[in-house]
């Protein structure tokens, strides 16, 4: 049975992958993901996990080996961060297009330059178009629970897509948290053996990854689009089954104290936990403010999100990445896409916070709240703003 114990999240996540009885782990070290694959390597070395650990020479090779392993019909796991994810970029599209089930943990970290090993979302947000299912966990318990959930989603015959599980580097990955870890036996009741829909099989040869000429490329892309959109229903069903079995229910979009909220903060990842503490204090003081966060990011749960923010007059959207010279942060862009043209759409205040490991404190929420409150009281909507800049946005450094 599961026990609650204090453990580093990376170790708990690696244990969970081990309890999923993964067949192949192909990985390359990169901070802050490294503890995960180190622990998996030791599970294999100590005989606790019967798997092939493939210590490749780069992240591009890690993803390439994962493609081969998944195509062989093996349950496949890897983990990376930042530059490693960027180096995989080319292969990520192909893994999704080939409909190869696998799970990749991404301990989110800033992209160079300048080189920076600390947390933000620039690594994952530049990979939005790769065709993978993507989820964000806000704490260690959720990250650990999502490992078997991700494998089951990925391998579901209706889905057959790679899944990326994101959580904040260091802030979550290196935190020692009380985690209720499901046992191998418990996971076995939830995650059936991998039965691939197609595999490279000498008795049934087929050609995987053929040339797509202009006469079929569009149709192939459409098939991929259909597959990822259609994964929504199985994802929700699998979340529910996990909740029914183990008592922890997850949803594509989470709301916190949004009842009657005029202003809703929208964000992803671990800063939600700081935000919840801050919201509790605000609610105690009578301020009508709440939080909505995306757990599922691809496929984008647009309808759930619309329901979650219904009634709010202003959304304060916190991004951890932005497009230089472009339309601001990715979460804000996608929320605008979701709400554009809807009746009584809320106004949107966009801020970028917590770049490259800069801490986000409750006082930062005070500051953002003031901007949102001004808009609520009729002030014009300000342009997207990079907050926490010494000297101010576009100010003197």
């Amino acid at each position, binding site marked *: 049975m599961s026990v609650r114990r204090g453990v580093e999240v990376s170790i708990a996540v690696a244990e969970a992958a081990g309890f999923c009885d993964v067949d192949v782990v192909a990985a390359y070290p990169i901070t802050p993901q490294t503890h995960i694959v180190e622990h998996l390597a030791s599970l294999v070395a100590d005989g606790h996990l019967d798997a092939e650990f493939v210590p490749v020479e*780069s992240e591009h090779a890690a993803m390439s080996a994962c493609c081969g392993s998944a195509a062989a019909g093996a349950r496949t796991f890897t983990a990376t961060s930042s530059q490693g994810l960027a180096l995989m970029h080319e292969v990520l599209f192909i893994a999704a297009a080939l409909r190869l089930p696998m799970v990749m943990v991404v301990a989110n970290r800033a992209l160079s330059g300048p080189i920076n090993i600390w947390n933000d979302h620039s690594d994952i947000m530049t990979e939005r178009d790769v065709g993978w299912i993507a989820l964000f966990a806000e704490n260690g318990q959720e990250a650990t629970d999502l490992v078997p959930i991700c494998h089951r989603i990925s391998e579901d015959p209706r889905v057959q897509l790679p899944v990326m599980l994101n959580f904040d580097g260091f802030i979550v990955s290196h935190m020692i948290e009380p985690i209720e870890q499901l046992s191998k036996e418990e996971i076995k009741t939830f995650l059936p053996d991998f039965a691939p829909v197609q595999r490279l099989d000498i008795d049934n040869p087929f050609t995987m990854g053929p040339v797509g000429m202009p006469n079929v490329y569009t149709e192939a892309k459409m098939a991929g689009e259909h597959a990822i959109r259609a994964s929504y229903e199985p994802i929700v069903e699998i979340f529910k089954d996990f909740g029914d079995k183990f008592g922890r229910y997850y949803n594509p979009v989470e709301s916190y104290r949004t009842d009657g909220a005029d202003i809703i903060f929208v964000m992803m990842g671990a800063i939600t936990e700081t935000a919840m503490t801050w919201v509790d204090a605000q609610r105690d003081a009578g301020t009508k403010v709440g939080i909505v966060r995306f757990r599922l990011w691809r496929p984008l749960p647009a309808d759930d999100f619309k329901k979650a923010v219904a009634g709010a007059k202003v959304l304060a959207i916190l991004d951890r990445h932005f497009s230089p010279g472009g339309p601001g942060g990715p979460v804000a862009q996608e929320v605008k896409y979701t709400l554009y043209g809807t009746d009584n759409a809320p106004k949107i205040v966009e801020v970028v916070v917590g770049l490259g490991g800069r801490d986000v404190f409750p006082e930062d929420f005070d500051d953002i709240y003031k901007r949102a409150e001004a808009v609520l009281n009729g002030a014009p909507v300000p342009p997207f703003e990079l907050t926490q800049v010494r000297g101010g946005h576009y100010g003197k450094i």
Partner: protein
Amino acid sequence: MEKFNVFASRLLPKEDYLCSGHRACQGCAEVLAMRLIHKALGRNTIVASATGCMEIISSPFPETAWNLPWMHVAFENAATVASGIESGYKALMRKGRIPQRKINFIAYGGDGATADIGLQWVSGAMERGHNMIYVCYDNEAYMNTGIQRSSSTPFGASTTTSPAGRESDGQATWKKNVTAIMAAHDIPYVATVNPSYPFDLFQKIRKAAAVDGPAYIHAYSCCPTGWRMRTDLAVQIGRLAVETAVAPLYEIENGKLRITQPIEKIRPVRDYLKIQGRFRHLKDTIIDDIETRLHQEYRALEARQAREQEEA
């Protein structure tokens, strides 16, 4: 070998796994090498292919020339994809999920995919000791994109990115010796093959499949389109490449080198160069320099073979 020449058609299996209907150019020696390789390997084989001529010509959806499980992911990583397939099969067989069987895992890349963009991936896969075969089909330039030079293009060859001109004699660097690089990984089996010597190729592929661990095969394969030569000379030029010491045939088995097609008297390299448009511009002095270096390299192979035989 002599007796094989008489009964050639009976000594190679009839079955083909890379089948007719592919779109390779007339006179392509790569596709000929591949066809022979798969005759040697048989049906229990899984193929990972790099992006390149052989991928394009054999897999235009919804057609395929492959009668084997075949996978293409990207340009530089075929070796790694094959290593992943091998690892997946190894784990599944050990865990009893699928029956234990002997399966050949083979990866293909052209000279660009092997000597240039994919060198790291090939090196990694060879170093990690996977039970697989990597084959470089070397036609000495990026033919698929229109004859651009690679680090495997021979000295003096005119390509679209090393063109001969008033200030240029074509490729200015000597061909990178990828076979030696792979041999330096201390893997159990390394060999050069050439489809103009089908039985030599056949035996080497059988050996490569039999060794426990990685094997590297460097397949000399002419490209009449890129080499500016007559397509009906495709087999003959492979013979000339060996006889002139341009591409000697040898194997390195557990570190011991053996020349499998010894050359008694090296033929003048002009015989090889003059039938190819890519060398048309070469002056006599440059041809002499090429010949000198080829002879030196071949003598070095002979010396190594003799030294190792003596030690044994």
